[in-house]
């Protein structure tokens, strides 16, 4: 079972690859849109990459609830629990 920090680090790597944001900036309290400047299309790419990486399904209607990195990490933790 991956720790919260491990999931955050893997997600940070994905965000870095797709949106070019330094992985260290991708912290739990950061908002994808307001702090990290990840737009909605990049968010779709992040979601698809996260689904593959973590073996979870993130339905379209859930994506809008994932406002912060912490929201996404919690979602992944719950989905893989």
């Amino acid at each position, binding site marked *: 079972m991956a720790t919260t920090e491990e999931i955050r680090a893997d997600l940070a790597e994905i965000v870095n690859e797709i949106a070019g944001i330094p992985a260290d900036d991708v912290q739990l309290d950061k908002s994808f849109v307001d702090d990290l400047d990840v737009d909605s*299309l990049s968010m779709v790419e992040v979601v*698809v990459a996260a689904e593959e990486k973590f073996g979870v399904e993130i339905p*379209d209607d859930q994506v809008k609830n994932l406002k912060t990195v912490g929201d996404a990490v919690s979602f992944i933790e719950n989905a893989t629990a």
Partner: protein
Amino acid sequence: MTALGSVQGSPHTRLLGVGSYRPSRIVPNSEVIEAIDSSDEWIQQRSGIKQRRWATDEETVEMMSIEASRGAIEEAGIQPEQIDAVVVATVTHLLQTPALAPMLAHKLGTQRAAAFDISAACAGFCHGIALGSDMVRAGSARHVLAIGVERLSDITNPLDRGTAFIFADGAGAAVIGPSDEPGIGPVVWGSDGEQYDLITQTEDWRYAIQCASPHMPTLAMQGNQVFRWAAFEMAKIAQQALDRAGVSVDDLDVFVPHQANMRITDAMARAMKLPDHVKIARDIAEQGNTSAASIPLALDRMREDGEAKSGDIALFIAFGAGLAYAAQVVVVP
């Protein structure tokens, strides 16, 4: 019982010629941003579009189709009377009936060629290529003219932040004919009607005309869902088209996806792991999204710029409303 006669076509087909027509009116982002309270930077970041072409009143679907077709026929080195079928892919011939194709077949000088329109939206051109190629192989036609033409500006809502900056106008055409070697690979095509509502006309004509405030229906799109489908599901279809043609990404010279959005093109290319040597069509930056016309327009720009040359292996993939999609590998004429 009497046995029926049968015909045989050509075992192989290829694109003999391609032509296109760009409308004369260039519309920069600065002309569309006010109505949608946006900016040039936002549009470019969101779509890669710097400007688009919109047709003038004189640049009708008929006029643009004829211009594009003449280029394709000339390059093919055939006479119009050698064309046995004309297939037109469009969703913006705003006369429900008759189809656009018979009039074009007549005005281009064919000898009463079979002529009909197909409705496969942005996927239309690749459907036309597939139909044309199969007609030549089956012997129901020796030369087929496949046209993609749109005036999406007629059905674009200038106030819709999701689409007003995307759609554009233009035409492209290809002549398909017999070949000694395979020049058009097997089509991989399909539909996903469960997602019927992702890209759709806002309401049907009858409602739009009979309601209290009669108006033109427009084209609406659920951008993020379309993006996900196009970028990721279509990358898989593109790979299948390569596999069916017996071609690897390393063999590929040119990638010409439907010019839907530069972000979709980039995401597809990443998902397909295209090697650096593959030239990628980016006509959308200057032309906008012309639906069924986008692939021949994009290919023509690459040929003009020297990015695609005769004999190159190209992958076409087109996808859009329906949802519908089609992909094939072709040899550039």
